[in-house]
């Protein structure tokens, strides 16, 4: 159980459980060296004490795991592993029956697309997009105003979406 309010913050580290021993140690060393009470300027005892306690908690992977879980418990966010509490006035979900997906869920997923592109293979996506755009321009040049033009362009968009989706990073819940 975490004893320091937020040991990650005390060491100036991001709140995540997969930090390495070296990262925690480096953060601790820099704070300890700057705030140690034996320094000629007297250091910063309060900060040193907080950092010491935080380091004692976070120095092992299991300790980080515990501290992270405790923080998530307190905050009520993060990667929750317990069933979500039911909304007051609403019936709890029946096991075996998936709750309805809110209509804005797909829009929410769209907001993640830029991040998924950045974390995926943006260069390949760009090449695909260029090919699709180039072919679309050629189609518009060759058969402007014909019923086949929008259909061909739809085909190119379809090709881009179907072949390009694997170049995106997976969404956060996968």
């Amino acid at each position, binding site marked *: 159980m975490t004893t320091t309010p937020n040991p990650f913050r005390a060491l100036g580290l991001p709140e995540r459980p997969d930090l390495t021993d070296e990262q925690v140690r480096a953060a601790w060393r*820099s704070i300890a060296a700057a705030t140690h009470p034996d320094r000629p300027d007297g250091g910063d005892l309060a900060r040193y004490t907080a950092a010491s306690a935080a380091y004692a908690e976070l120095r092992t992977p299991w300790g980080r795991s515990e501290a992270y879980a405790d923080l998530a418990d307190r905050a009520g966010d993060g990667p929750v592993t317990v*069933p979500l509490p039911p909304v007051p006035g609403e019936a709890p979900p029946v096991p075996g029956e998936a709750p309805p997906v809110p209509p804005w869920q797909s829009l929410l997923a769209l907001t993640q697309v830029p991040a998924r592109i950045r974390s995926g293979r943006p260069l390949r996506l760009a090449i695909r997009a260029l090919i699709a755009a180039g072919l679309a321009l050629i189609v518009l040049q060759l058969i402007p105003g014909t019923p086949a033009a929008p259909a061909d362009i739809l085909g190119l968009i379809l090709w881009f979406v179907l072949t390009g989706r694997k170049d995106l990073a997976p969404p956060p819940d*996968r």
Partner: protein
Amino acid sequence: MSVWTWLKFVTFLWLLRKSLKLARWLVVLAAAVVAWPVTVIAGTGYAAAWLRGWPPVRVYRAAAWTLVVTAAWLAALEASDPGFLATREPGRAWGMGWDRFSVAGLARTFALLAPVALPAGLALAGLIWAWRIYAVTTGLGGIRASAPITFDTRQWKRQVRTAKGLTDAPGAVPLLGRGGRIPVGGTIRAIGHRWHPVLALPAAACARHMVIVGATGSGKTNLMIRLWAGWFTASLAAARTGRGHRPLLVVLDCKGGRDARRKADRTRRLLYGAGARRVAIWPDEARLCLWDLPPDELAVLLYQMIDSGTGAAAYYADVLQAVITLAVTAPCGPPLSTAAFLDRLNAKWLASAWGDGRHPAEAEHARAAARHLPDIQLRYTTLLARLGPALDGPGRLEEADAWYCILEGTRERSVAEAQAMALTELAAHTATSLDGEPRAMLLAADDYSAVSARVPLSNLYERGRSLGIGVQVSAQSWQGLGATEDERYRIAATADGGVFVLRTPHPEPLAALAGKRRVLETAHRLIGGAWGDEGTTREQRAWNADPDLVRRLKVGQACYIHHGAATFVHVARPKPSPLSLPPPPLAPPSLPPIEPEPVPRGEPASGPDPWPSPASLDDIFGPETPR
């Protein structure tokens, strides 16, 4: 009939046959030229399928997708020219193409006809490719007798390359697929199973029983970690939506050693990315309490943990069991620690515990066993000392989302066996306990053969089935699955979640589970060095999971056997979505620079230390920091 007449008749027949054949090809060529946009697309589709080792179904699916284009074109045509005149449009465009015979004209015609030519061409490509595969594999096609072998080898290489390319794509094989399925990797070849670009298992397959067999360095660890993370992600997603219980993964790494620690660390990082909060590594960082077990189960377990032998030793075994039962089920309650248990293996303690007058039979048993008690105590003192403090608590399985238990099966086999018994007992207790939160459990035993001498794998398997927990077992070879052929077969044949076979020297018994399929084999009459035009075709049986192919699998390639069919797959390295956790930490916090001169240390204070010290001052003033 004279010889000359007979020769003329034979020559005539030969010429007739050849002319008919030529005429057939000319008709095909004429059709290909006339319907050139369809030919272009069919040729491209065929070439793509040939080069990438796609099955025909992949081309058919592409053709089905292009029907969207056709539908859009029909809709646009109907909107611009009502009256269902669409049928005339392709003919008009085609005719215009011949009138303007230039590159631009051909390109224009192609663009105009693409909405119709795309599905037609791709469907045709699929049909031709399917016929080509059929002709070559049955021996009807090909120039040389070795054509089926060459074709298969070449196609395998291409299928591997395509599957690997797909596996390397960041979004193709996530930890969790659509519909809660667990993607494993790019499909190389599916025989009997429905082909999908990515092999994805339903999460329920992992919640049942699964066997994984592969030699060291074949990619078994990668596959197992992927399955664990996939199962965890799927179960967690189901729990969040109220469709299941919170997952609890228990991994028994029965080989131990440094590799196990690395694997544990990798598994933990992946599970964090998948949404786990607490991932415990036993016995390095977390402990479990054996003494939390109900007294009856605890007594049986403690008895089984000691190797009591057979024959004359059976007498001693009975005494041992009686003493353990007396010590654990005493009226004052079960022991709460190792020390408390060892204290009870004492004649005086047992006599006082059972000597309340209400248990005369037990008191008599305690008196009768008194002379054996020092021996029994010595044996348990030795055993529990070797087991170490990791089973002496505090800690319960349900306190974490996942436990990675490292058993030193290679170094200390007897200790690891006892630990494995204790851990499986704790897992079984957690699964059946009614007072705690119900959990979806997966018990994975990696290289269980290292500790299976005293607890046969089949016991673990059958136990898991009766308790409703998924059991996943891995071994390095078929022989590692059990002590006898019967036991091995029982384990493999009852794996209703499927069997993964990676490179292993003796895959035949496992490959046999995939069964065989009917194939056609054609024999040709040879005239000199060339094939004649006569021959026979007969039905043969071929392995679905060819053992020779399995023996030659490369690192990361696996064969999934399920329901009498096989799918070869290139397993993707498991990685959580980079968006699931906050961005990686930046540089260490910027702090004012420290003066290089040594920091004077004060005299030690007489009272308590005014500030808490880190466990090792080397952390602050280590060798790299000037003192």
